[in-house]
């Protein structure tokens, strides 16, 4: 499918999407179909990966319900309002990150949670949305492509929360938040010269990053480079994950028949490493179906970006779509041994709540961008 042309978006004044039933509900049918298929696939895999624990499936289903609720709710919010609210949401998010570092709860050895009385809340998740919104807000205020000053401003808006999150420490989320800002910049037409320049600076700063890493983070990188050096310790995840995937072959061992997962050789099998369960039980063929679903959803997101009515919508939709892609790539890369182990879940398949809500909320925003249209005054 070709990316929709610019002129077609201009033709969509009084678009039928506004008048159909789904249009009135602000639902994008192709995106919803892709997401539902993916969620269903995820639930089936989770049932197997959790050791046929229906309780886990039910809890995941409940979370999905909440997340879809968020998606639906955000789809109702017009992008204009979202754009207006971007700066206050961003500022509130950064303040909460600071609060987490000062008074946050410690969970799994890292400070990530903010206790708001009844609910425990992870501000870093909010930033996954707030950063692309804020950067899109900044860049959309002037004609694209952005000048050097705006690029620097966007970089600052991205790096401040990313560094705060990395300090919690939560490298996975920091990477995703940074990616969100960079993705928006890229979509906005960041000049290639700057892209290569930044790439060079980042490469030059690598030793500095290494110096500031926590021991366990360094260990992950070292283990990634040579998993056999510590096969029972930090290399265990990667080795067992590769055994699971490799032993699956093309056809897979069959749903519910994965020995690596069911006999518990595979750690984190229903959360971060669930992709290995798919590889083991459903084989390469199952994985290709899953990746096909992801490609479809990313494609649809990019199409919405191209078809959006204004720069803010285009930048935000493109940025959110690319963040979704980064989720998929970092997770599958980590599980297959292409990338170091970073705590990034497989979107909409891994067991776990917070990131799922954020993800579906971002799809709610995409739907809003697609379905809230106004007549253009020419």
């Amino acid at each position: 499918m070709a990316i929709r042309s610019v002129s077609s978006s201009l033709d969509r004044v009084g678009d039928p999407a506004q008048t159909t039933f789904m249009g009135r509900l602000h639902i994008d049918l192709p995106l919803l179909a892709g997401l539902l298929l993916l969620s269903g696939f995820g639930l089936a895999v989770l049932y197997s990966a959790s050791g046929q624990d229906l309780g886990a499936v039910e809890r995941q289903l409940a979370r999905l319900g909440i997340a879809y609720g968020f998606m639906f709710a955000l789809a109702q919010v017009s992008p204009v309002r979202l754009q207006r609210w971007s700066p206050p949401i961003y500022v509130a998010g950064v303040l909460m990150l600071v609060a987490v570092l000062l008074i946050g709860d410690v969970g799994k050895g890292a400070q990530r949670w903010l206790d708001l009385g009844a609910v425990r809340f992870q501000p870093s998740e909010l930033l996954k949305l707030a950063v692309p919104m804020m950067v899109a807000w900044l860049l959309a205020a002037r004609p694209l492509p952005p000048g050097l000053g705006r690029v620097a401003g966007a970089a600052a808006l991205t790096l401040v929360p990313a560094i705060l999150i990395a300090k919690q420490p939560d490298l996975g989320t920091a990477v995703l938040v940074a990616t969100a800002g960079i993705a928006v910049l890229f979509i906005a037409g960041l000049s290639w010269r700057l892209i290569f320049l930044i790439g060079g600076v980042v490469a030059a700063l690598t030793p500095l990053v290494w110096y500031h890493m926590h021991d366990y983070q360094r260990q992950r990188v070292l283990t990634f480079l040579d998993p056999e050096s510590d096969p029972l310790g930090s290399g265990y995840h990667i080795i067992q994950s590769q055994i699971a995937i490799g032993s699956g072959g093309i056809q897979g061992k069959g749903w519910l028949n994965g020995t690596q997962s069911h006999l518990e050789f595979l750690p984190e099998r229903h959360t971060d490493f669930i992709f290995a369960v798919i590889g083991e039980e459903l084989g390469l063929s199952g994985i290709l179906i899953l990746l096909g679903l992801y490609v479809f959803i990313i494609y649809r997101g990019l199409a919405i970006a191209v078809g959006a009515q204004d720069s803010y919508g285009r930048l935000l939709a493109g940025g959110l779509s690319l963040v979704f892609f980064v989720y998929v790539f970092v997770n599958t890369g980590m599980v297959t041994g292409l990338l170091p182990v970073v705590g990034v879940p497989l979107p909409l398949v891994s067991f776990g709540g917070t990131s799922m809500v954020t993800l579906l909320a971002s799809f709610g925003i995409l739907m809003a961008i697609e379905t809230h249209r106004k007549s253009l005054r020419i």
Partner: protein
Amino acid sequence: MRLDSSIQDREREAHLVAVRAAISGVLVLAALALVIVRLVHLQVDNHEHYSVLSKDNRVKVQPVPPTRGLIYDARGLLIADNHPSFSLEITIEKVEDLAGTIDALAAVLPIDEKDRSRFDRMQRQRVRFQGVPIRLNLTEEEVARFSLDSYRFPGVDVNAELIRTYPLGDLTAHVLGYVGRINEEEMGRIDGSDYAGTHFIGKGGVEKAHEGLLHGHVGYQQVEVNARGRVLRTLEGKPPVAGRDLLLYLDMGLQRAATAALGDNRGAVVAIDPRTGGVLALVSKPSFDPNLFVQGIAQKDYHALLYSPDKPLFNRAVRGQYPPGSTVKPFVGLAGLAAGVIDARKVKFCPGAYRLPGQSHRYRCWRRGGHGTLALEQAIVQSCDVYFYDLAHDLGIERLKGYLGRLGFGDRTGIDVSGELGGLVPSKEWKEKVRKQLWYPGETLIVGIGQGAFLATPLQLAVATATMANRGHFIAPRVARATRLPGDKQAAELPAVSRPVDVTAPGQWDQVIRAMTQVVESPNGTARRIRTSDYLIAGKTGTAQVFTVGQNETYNVSRITERMRDHALFIAFAPVDDPRIAVAVIVENGGHGGSVAAPVARRVIDAHLGGTQLMADAGPEHGD
């Protein structure tokens, strides 16, 4: 919104975004293509390799230890049994924080100081990757309680195993020995693969001597395990071959009677059926409870046994090497007859002491006044030392040693009780080699009356007595008669090792036996007080010197402390014409053989042959 911007501006912006989105799409596809290439590498190119690794992960070969054979006495009484027991074992190599794990376990199950100290002791001599028990004899309730929490204790497992028990305890300790956990040294000695999964090994006695029969052969099973090593199901396997049961000659009725006959004395009794070489009773007192050793004895209990002056762990019957004293005289007499050095009818004169030609040293007879003239029979009946000094002198040490060796002295008898010692018949060669000294002719005389460097075990005395009863047919003694597979009716007899002991004329055995019979029957015999009308008993008393009496001193019993008193010895067999039992008795520091050791032998013979029991002691009497 910049509503004032021109359409061109907006179109340019939209175009820019569309181009960037398209580039993004290409990058997305390129990145996912990289992932797919990686997946093809794992799932297609290296599928075989990872399939093997996956199978290795989940399929483990486990050894299945065989069940140890049971041991039955001559009447079919079970004297070594296996009973199931649950123990909690820690595989130290699988545990990160050992002290923390034990403390956490103590919160779930009672673990006391004794458990901890036993664990510390056993883990020092453990075999790598074998569990070390932290708790023994768990109740079913304790097993259930641990099972609930077992997920918290990787490397800690409940192990159900069969534990050896000895229902008769100290009654069988010295003859059966016991089993205990395999230690590092034993691990190096045995076939490790056959003992994979076996925790116990025979540590002494019959248990050690027949280890090969009792143990059986290991089996294996392929099992599917999960990442924590928990076995989920058995895939295939080969069952173990159970150890063979042992059927013994040992008669617990007689064993009990012999133990009772020794009373509170330290000593040993060995009873043999001369017809088979079968050991009917083998007692060493004091004894100990072998069950304490099976699972590892507490340090305190062990030290109490080890350092007790009565030496309860010492198997006097097969390891106790005593000067045989006068009990050796019938055998020396036989050697004299066989060598033609003496004639049974020819007399010698005993003036109370013997002097070698050209020497002033007087070798004293136990009777200071002397026995006057006597032939072989009376020399044995009255145990005249001078007669045997002369006989030994005429024989010479080499010939004497040769005959004694054929009767089993000076070498291990080959009994199937582990740890046997061989005693010592001294010789010129031995003395030059070991003591780097020359042999003096006087030493030959001392050997002739069973003293000096001459040492024999009670077992050797019993075997020589049985050979005498058999009129020269030596059968190596054995405790086990036959073996049987568990559940089988048919038992396989174990082969006997026998050989003839030659003399010049067949009647020479009976000449000595007649003399031994008179030791009991004759009014001046040294063992006359055990005479019975039920059957004829042939015997010989003896006294083993613990304390050497100086040349011009007399032996005064009351002046010598009990531990310095002589050991009392007695050998006997009965009935004389159809011998069914041969006995050797030693009572440590018992004094005279005739008054202390002979009644013990009589009670054992009575118990076996069903004779009327001997009345209580009638006080001490003299005679060696």
